[in-house]
């Protein structure tokens, strides 16, 4: 059964997969930093999903009820639902999405560039979730 995105259940499914992935644990062994997925809509406030990533493990994951209470995170990945869905469906290369601004990256680029294998493995893990994209 497909898991809806963006949702609390989807981000928790990602947490489970990350914590059960030896490949992610290895690729992200040096990663320190939490991040938001920010899904932008034309007609309403963005949806936020939070994950706390630490040395190859996901320590916490949840959907944020509103932007006002969202805590500061090391990274924020923002995109439209269309572009997030393309990446998660493997229709858009994640590097290309970032390079072309289809996914906007805010945060420490030094950390990001040192850990590109971790980023790619993170995306590969997310792509394994059978996802229903909520419009």
């Amino acid at each position, binding site marked *: 059964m497909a898991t809806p995105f963006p949702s609390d259940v989807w981000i928790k499914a990602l947490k489970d997969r990350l914590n059960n992935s030896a490949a992610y644990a290895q690729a992200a062994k040096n990663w320190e930093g939490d991040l938001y997925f920010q899904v932008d809509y034309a007609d309403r406030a963005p949806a936020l999903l939070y994950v706390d990533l630490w040395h190859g493990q996901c320590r916490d994951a949840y959907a944020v009820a509103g932007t006002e209470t969202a805590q500061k995170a090391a990274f924020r990945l923002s995109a439209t639902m269309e572009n997030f869905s393309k990446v998660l469906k493997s229709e858009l*290369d994640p*590097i*290309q999405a*970032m*390079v*072309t*601004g289809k996914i*906007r*990256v805010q945060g420490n*680029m*030094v*950390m*990001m*560039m*040192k*850990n*590109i*294998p971790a980023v790619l493995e993170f995306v590969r893990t997310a792509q394994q979730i059978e996802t229903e994209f909520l419009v």
Partner: protein
Amino acid sequence: MNGYQGRLLTVDLTTGRIETLPLDLALLRRYLGGSALSAALLYPRLTRGLDPLGPENPLLILNGPLSGTAGPSVGRFTVCAKSPATGLWAESNCGGFFGPELRFAGYDGLLITGKAPTPAYLWIHHDHVEIRPAHHLWGQADTYLTQEKIRAEAGEKLARVLCIGVGGESLIPYSLLLCDHGRVAGRTGMGAVMGSKHLKAVAVRGAPGERKIPLAREAEFNRLRSGANLELRNSTTSTVLRETGSSGGAEFFDFMGEMPKRYFTSGVFEGAGRVSGASMAETILSGVSTCHACVIACGRKVKLPGEAEGKGPEYETIVGFGPQLLVDDLAAITRLGRLCDAYGLDTISMSNVIGLAYLLYSEGKVTAAEAGGPLEWGDPSAAERLIHLTLRREGLGEILAQGARALGRHCRAEEEAVQVNNLEVAYHDPRASSGMALVYATSPRGACHNQSDYFMVDLWKDTNYANGELQDPRAGAEKAANVALHQDWRTVHNALVQCFFASVPLATTLSLVNAATGFDYSLDELREVGERAWNLKRAINNRLGLTRANDTLPKALLTPYAEGGSAGLVPDFPAMLSAYYAARGWDEATGRPTRATLLRLGLGDVADDISKIPPQTGWRTD
């Protein structure tokens, strides 16, 4: 003349004659500027018998139509001649502030011929042009001090100085020109050409109040460039470059197997991550630097313990003196890069030559006695020793000063030298990005990543100039047409002369060029400027003796790595090359553009010329 000052300054150093040469508007429309226009202007002069280090070899310094404006990263200029390294077409472009200043002085470019009877430098102060003695500068090791002394003599603190080091004076075929804070025209030995003319430097300062370039539609241009710069400054790639420099992608390229190690023989080096731009940012980075009106700021300033702040290394220098020698000491790499800059040596070629020396030493083909000591992988001090030997042309240094192929030949191991047409290969491995196989093999100036940085398409996925289509980084012949297209666009950028780091949408580039020049090209007409120049440079090289046999790759790049991100892979080079010839409209037997291709590009006179060339059986610089 919109987009141009409309004239070149010409200086004959033999006679001391100084003149201006008007530029023809129709020629500008066909070639724009930079290395494309240079090819058109130099075409009649570049003959097979021309000695690259003789007084007749013309040295042309040329801007593009946007130089001196605040357009996106357009402050570069190009230097062209016949190369003493390759015997072929030479071009090398450079950032900093020199090019725009030459435009502010009222010239689009500078054509230098002849040879000064004694060392000299050129002082251009708007319409006042003077050949000054440089005895006191000749033999001056430090290119930075040379700049300071000339500025002091000129009484102009803001004069921009383009100079050679001892490398250029010593006619080393991979010596460079340097200006400002370590911006260089590094490849193809333009320093040696300038040195052969007894010309130490060119200094320029435009007159106050005339620091504007005439533009066809100034308000439109300013609106466009403001938007383009804002978009560029906020892009992910620019952010990466600003925060981590050109070596910010080092870990990524290492992960993808695109960064060569141990002189192209290993796909893995555990220390690679310790010498990246990200590591630099976390350790020795003290600031950033820019070229004229650039919003990216990729230049690095670093502070080493107990030393003054200075230039930090960029990607090629880091890989060449780092993973290629199995060195993981960022401070040592920084010092080696600075030493090359001070001496005026290209770090790509110098580090290649040293890498080959280390490899041959490991194979017992170079001895410690002739190298002045052992050459152990991981030891940066041996590299420093070899740089000094090279400068002095002492012992093995005499061979090192001739380049990697000469060293290989000296050791009866020429096939181990990683070069194409005697230009040492840059550090983007075609075993990970197959497009680079064609780029290196067909570049008009030898193995070069600045005729097309196709690795940015294959791996960084920037398809802005390559049909918007993603292909497998390891794909073969099906990629050939896209590589040719990318080369065409990059030739347009080398005509503008625009930094490759400025990934501006093509439509924006077109609008900027049209607003500046009033040429009102269509997008395909603009691309065709690039294709025309690419074919003209090919024809120049054909006239200089280049054939299809020159379109090769060295053995190392066709030998798969045992480990790493590109393990087991090699490009399907023969099939790719044939497909490329078909895409280009080049003749498989002769390696020349066909008559039909040249006629389509309006190069009928060139077609007539190359039809008269007798069939060549191969070409070497020696």
